[in-house]
């Protein structure tokens, strides 16, 4: 057998190798049963966005907690070091607020509400 003979024999051999009839119809039927790739893409995109949002909120919660801890520690240190002065100052502030009437009370209430709201928002994450 020469090169041409071998080539022809190989071509004959491989010409018989093919998919079974109806291959394309079977593939199309399979993909028809799947959700559209665009929908899958959209789902993946939404999942990616939700993951990024959760990550950001977790990071912010840590930052808020650290800030609150720092402020608390600073306040404690200030009270520890300048106890009488701080208590005099606080008394003055309270007196000032109560003398100022409704506006001062409203400011204190708003501050308290903000602290409570921040705490709730942090706890909800």
């Amino acid at each position: 057998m020469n090169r041409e003979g071998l080539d022809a024999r190989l071509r004959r051999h491989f010409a018989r190798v093919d998919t079974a009839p109806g291959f394309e119809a079977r593939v199309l039927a399979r993909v028809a049963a799947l959700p559209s790739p665009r929908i899958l893409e959209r789902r993946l995109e939404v999942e990616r966005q939700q993951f990024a949002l959760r990550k950001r909120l977790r990071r912010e919660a840590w930052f808020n907690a650290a800030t609150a801890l720092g402020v608390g520690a600073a306040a404690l240190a200030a009270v520890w070091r300048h106890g009488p002065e701080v208590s005099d100052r606080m008394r003055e502030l309270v007196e000032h607020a109560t003398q100022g009437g409704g506006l001062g009370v409203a400011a204190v209430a708003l501050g308290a509400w903000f602290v409570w709201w921040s705490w709730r928002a942090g706890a909800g994450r």
Partner: protein
Amino acid sequence: MPADQAIVELVQAGRGQEAFERLLPAYRRRVFGLAYGILRDRAAAEDLAQEVFVKLWQALPRYDGRAQLSTWIYAITRNAAVSALRARRRELSLADEAVAAEVEGVAAPDAAAAEDPALRRAIDRLPEKQRQAITLYYMDERSVEEVADMMGIPANTVKTHLHRARASLAAALGESAKEPA
């Protein structure tokens, strides 16, 4: 390839279904041939080709056109076929080696093997890359360059594989192929 260009344009226009309906007949033989060249089993290659087309359907909206469409499809097919081959070998390695070889040899009694069993046996004994090159080259009269693209190797390496494979086949069939220099 002009057909590829049309498919890419459809993908970019968001007409994935239409693109896939054109891609399927255009690549059926090539995807199947590549899978067959690696797996050496018609039924397994057909199952794998189906899986590859389902993957292509799902991945088509993400095709960004950086690689040629054919190169992208062949890479997906090669990866899937090589994974399937490894999985099959792991299964067979549980059995005795001689039994495993026997099982692999008789796994796909297809029409081609039935018509020319001596040639089929000789092809099966070729090293993997030579067998793939011979299969892809002769299955649809492809050029060396296209076979190189399908296998992901340089064209000169394909020529070497083809040359060695022909020589081995000729020797195995008890003949000498008089190849031009």
